[in-house]
């Protein structure tokens, strides 16, 4: 299987930047006349950006493997972009998590709490700055025209790195050095065991809480009214949060064990499809139709289909996750001779 992760990265890398920009714009505009529809839309965009950014971040490592050491490509610039991404990604996900809490508050209390609004405002502003820098440092890798130094014949020496603005030089202080970050994760086996244990506990919480809702919609456990079952969703989201964080850390620890594994990319495809499935459930009115279901009432066919795909995709996630190691050498990246 040959996959061009660089192309995929170039496709996906626009979502975090443009998405955060649009989300922030709508969010700020929502304060004019307290427009709740606009605000809710901005939360949905932030959540979607958090989801898509998982793909952007992971494909970046594939793209890196493909272009590292190539003539005209600076390893120092790649390292700087990678360090920037490793800082930014947590804030993109934080903004998404806070926006998801806001969406839950819209659902439960018809409007989000004040602390949520302040937190989203703070997190999304910071994310906007960080994501702009990550985009810019990434662009400089393959767009020499935006670099300050024009010589592409050799690697950029540390002191000849493109000039950073005042904001960039401040952010820089907080950015990890990629190799050190990776080493910190894999050098401690207890940290590794802890990450894996949490990833599996997260798995059990997600499959349990999402699974029971899916089974109910499919027509099993029909004695259960649907609305109270949906109260487990914050727990499912907490499990998902744990697994995104622990999954990211495991991946950063030894990316070379993951990027050549077909199972990892299939798992990420399943994750993206789960995002689409959730969008189909919540944004097309299906959720509003099933929410009032009382004990014994049947869910509409659309809800059943969504429930079946959700269960199927979660078990696909487990399956591909389990085969990452066995299939860790099944993807050939163009231009990479040996792994």
């Amino acid at each position, binding site marked *: 299987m040959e996959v061009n992760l660089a192309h995929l990265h170039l496709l996906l890398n626009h979502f975090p930047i443009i998405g955060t920009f649009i989300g922030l714009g709508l969010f700020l505009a929502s304060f004019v006349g307290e427009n709740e529809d606009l605000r809710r839309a901005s939360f949905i965009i932030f959540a979607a950006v958090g989801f898509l950014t998982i793909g952007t971040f992971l494909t970046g490592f594939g793209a890196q493997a493909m272009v590292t050491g190539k003539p005209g490509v600076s390893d120092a610039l790649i390292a700087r972009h990678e360090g920037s991404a490793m800082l930014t990604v947590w804030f993109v996900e934080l903004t998404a998590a806070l926006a998801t809490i806001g969406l839950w508050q819209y659902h439960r209390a018809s409007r989000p709490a004040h602390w949520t609004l302040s937190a989203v405002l703070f997190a999304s502003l910071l994310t906007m700055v960080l994501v702009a820098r990550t985009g810019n440092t990434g662009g400089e890798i393959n767009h020499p025209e935006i670099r300050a130094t024009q010589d592409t014949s050799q690697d950029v020496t540390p002191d000849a790195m493109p000039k950073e603005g005042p904001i960039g030089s401040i952010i820089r202080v907080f950015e990890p050095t990629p190799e050190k970050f990776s080493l910190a994760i894999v050098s401690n*086996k*207890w940290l*590794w*065991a802890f990450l*894996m*244990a949490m990833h*599996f*506990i997260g*798995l*059990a*919480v*997600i*499959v*349990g*809480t999402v*699974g*029971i809702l899916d089974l109910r919609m499919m027509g*099993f*456990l029909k*004695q*259960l*009214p649907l*609305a*109270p*079952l949906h*109260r*487990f969703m914050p*727990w499912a989201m907490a499990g998902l949060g744990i697994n995104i964080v622990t999954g990211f850390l495991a991946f950063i620890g030894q990316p070379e064990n993951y990027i050549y594994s077909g199972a990892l990319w299939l798992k990420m495809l399943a994750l993206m499809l789960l995002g689409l499935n959730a969008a189909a459930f919540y944004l097309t009115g299906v959720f509003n139709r099933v929410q009032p279901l009382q*004990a014994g009432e049947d869910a509409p066919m659309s809800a059943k289909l969504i429930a079946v795909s959700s269960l199927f995709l979660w*078990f696909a996630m*487990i*399956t591909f*996750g*389990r*085969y990452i*190691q*066995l299939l860790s050498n099944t993807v050939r990246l163009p231009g990479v001779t040996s792994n």
Partner: protein
Amino acid sequence: MVVPQIFNTVEQSAFSTWIRESPSLFAFYFILLFHTIGLSFVVGANTVVDLRLLGVARALPLKPLKRLFAIMWTGLAINVVTGVLLLIAYPTKAMTNPVFYFKLLFITIAVITMRKMNILFDDASLSDPALMAKGKSLAVMSLTFWFAAVSAGRLLSETYRFLNYHQYLMKMGLS
């Protein structure tokens, strides 16, 4: 430490070797996959019932959750079978690791808790509030020991002393 010779006999058997060394997608990793799916059944369903007993989703009637116990016992059965298969693949590795015995202990406590909880749910005379009052401490036990069992399981690959009987002989200077 003396490791019984029988572990060597098991390890040398064709079946054990096949599970361990076959490049087939349906050998070791397939068993491991079903061990994880079994985990998601037994721990996932337990988590939902535990959370409900501890006060999450209070509007949800408790009694119908009785049917989730079938999922839990199915998950447990899958994991006993796949667990034995994994043990056949690596007897020395598992049996010489203290963490493995902790894992078994945690599972034993968790399963006893699950059985007690199942008996409570089967008691038709208990109202939902009574069931909740009686089930709370069981729910805490259940969450604690299932999560402990999962964690111990994940620790096994980081804590084993001998991968196989041969390595035991080498490291102990017995061959």
